[in-house]
């Protein structure tokens, strides 16, 4: 048990100011701007429901990374919830497979107003590598209304943060 506490103490706090590793000083400023926007519009907490509507799971890996100690997106008031009923924002990865189409519509309908949708990844944004076919509806906007897209295959955690910040900081 002592080893455990020693490891915690010696690891220290790793959560980053983004300008240190990426030399992108605007991110920390953007984060504070987002925090301000979330404080104002969402009483300090933006709830995200992530929906995989057909992705290859690459985007999910990077969305997960937002919660690791380096990005710790929760410090800006952003957190992931288990139900669309609790969500302000749907983060949808695609392409939307036809087999997921009804589930995505229902998830969208189950989300309380006001709500926002961000389509994540090249597939969610424009169909990407998979496009439209007998099995795929293509981009998310072909199925539900989309407010913004975050491109990338997959988008890096940094791009995801910037994309989310952009929607609410404007």
């Amino acid at each position: 048990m002592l080893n455990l506490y020693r490891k915690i103490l010696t690891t220290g706090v790793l959560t980053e100011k983004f300008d240190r590793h990426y030399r992108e000083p605007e991110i920390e400023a953007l984060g504070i701007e987002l925090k301000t926007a979330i404080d104002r519009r969402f009483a300090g907490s933006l709830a995200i429901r992530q929906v995989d509507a057909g992705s290859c799971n690459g985007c999910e890996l990077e969305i997960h990374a937002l919660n690791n100690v380096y990005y710790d997106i929760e410090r800006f008031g952003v957190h992931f919830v288990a139900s669309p009923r609790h969500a302000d924002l749907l983060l949808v990865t695609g392409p939307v497979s036809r087999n997921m189409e009804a589930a995505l519509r229902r998830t969208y309908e189950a989300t309380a107003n006001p709500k926002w949708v961000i389509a994540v990844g090249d597939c969610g944004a424009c169909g990407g590598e998979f496009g439209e076919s007998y099995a795929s509806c293509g981009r998310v906007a072909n199925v539900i209304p989309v407010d913004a897209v975050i491109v990338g295959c997959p988008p890096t955690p940094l791009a995801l943060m910037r994309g989310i910040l952009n929607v609410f900081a404007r």
Partner: protein
Amino acid sequence: MNDAIEQSLPFHVDLEANRILAIEAVPSPLLPARLLDIVVPADWGRAGEMAQAAGWRWVAGWAEDEGEHLSVSVCLELQGDYLVLRTHIDSQQPSLPSHAPYFFSANRPERHMQDLFGIEFTGHPDPRRWTRHQAWDEHAAPLRKSYPAAGVPPAQTPPDNSYPFFKAQGQGVYEIPVGPVHAGIIEPGHFRFQAVGETVLHLEERLGYVHKGIEKIAEGRTAEGLARLAGRVSGDTTAGHAFAACLAMERAAGLAAPARAAFVRGILAERERVANHLWDMAAICNDVAFTFAYYQFGRLRELWLRDNQAWFGHRLLMDIVVPGGVSVDVSDAALQGMRASIKYLRKELSELITIIDANSSLEDRLVAAGYLTPAQAQSFGALGFVGRASGQSFDVRRAAPYPPYDQVEVKVPVEQQGDIAARFWVRYKETRVALGVLERLLAALPAGETRLPWQTPQPGAEGLGLVEGWRGEILSFVRFGEDGRVSRYYPRDPSIVNWPALEKIALGNIVPDFPVCNKSVNGSYSGNDL
């Protein structure tokens, strides 16, 4: 063991003794596998029965539309020898005896062929639809050449609420439907539990939700385009699937990637293994609320991915394995950097595992939970860490080595306990083995080219790629048509084989332990659904 080898190698002789007419293609177009054509389709089921009796493992099955005929191919493996059986059936009345009575791993793949080619597998114990939900009707066969890739989809695809699930009845029995949208950042699929109190009585998986027509949209692609698509069969296995697909395409083209490229591919595959195992170990601990390990392993994974970005230009290593070689070379700086980060990771792992091993609450949750017996693992043909945690030692890198593993020895850690703790330990040990393999690959990295110019394969040329991905054996079948365009691609992710094992693993556990049972298997939904 030796008896099995002697019995099995002359499989075609066995077939003849049983009056099954089989013709071997010499030389085999599907190396390293031999190819046997079963002349009379009616013998197909008996051939499967004999293969099962001789101890062969059913690796994968796929069909091809040849116009008047459909061909069905099945890949088998025994002691590292691969064998493909193939037969041809009438495309108007396509019917073939099922292998599912003899091999569990044939069950869902045959249903997949049934849904996408319209083939009836006679004697199949469970001929319900599998990949087909409501996006195309029963009489359509999307993978037939005559079916347009765009399909004829309804304006809105209706929900699939008529699937005939298994039912359980009795006092106190209740049902829990879960998914396809889950309460976390994970892929979609449906699980149907029958439970009594907290105990799982029965679990049925319903997958196919992320079926996005990968096999169909592969048709007509260039070699390079197929490599990109293969890298997205399952995003977490991008190097593994691209590796398998490129091997298959290169064999079809009569081309071998240069030695240095093979080593770089090995480095990419091992880096992918380490990144995913770190994440799985994090997530297994998180699912039993041991967040210390979740954050620590997550931290190490993030550093590993940043190194990927720095040295290969992509955090998940996408689009680096390309036909003819690799698109990124390993610089001297990267070589030095990787050596240092391997040393660092090894030190960190040693420190963490001491803490984790001494944690009694973790032991309480992981030991004896999610049990898969070695006998069950064998009958499922379980692959990767799922098989190896239950006594199955198969690893393509060792059993049928391909470059660079023909030059680097790989130890395969095996556990017998078959529980979640064993699947955790196998991952841990495999991570350490992978670090050693990485060091040896870096030390022996040959000089020279990293990419050969692509050669257009002959129309009709086919190839098979078999590699050990981080989840286990990956099979990739590719056939080319005119102008070097792909006419058929079938990737078999290890998840397709391992998913059914989860239905057994969950039995007798409490419902709240299902997430950690699921995570300990960690099948890819995308790789399964295609």
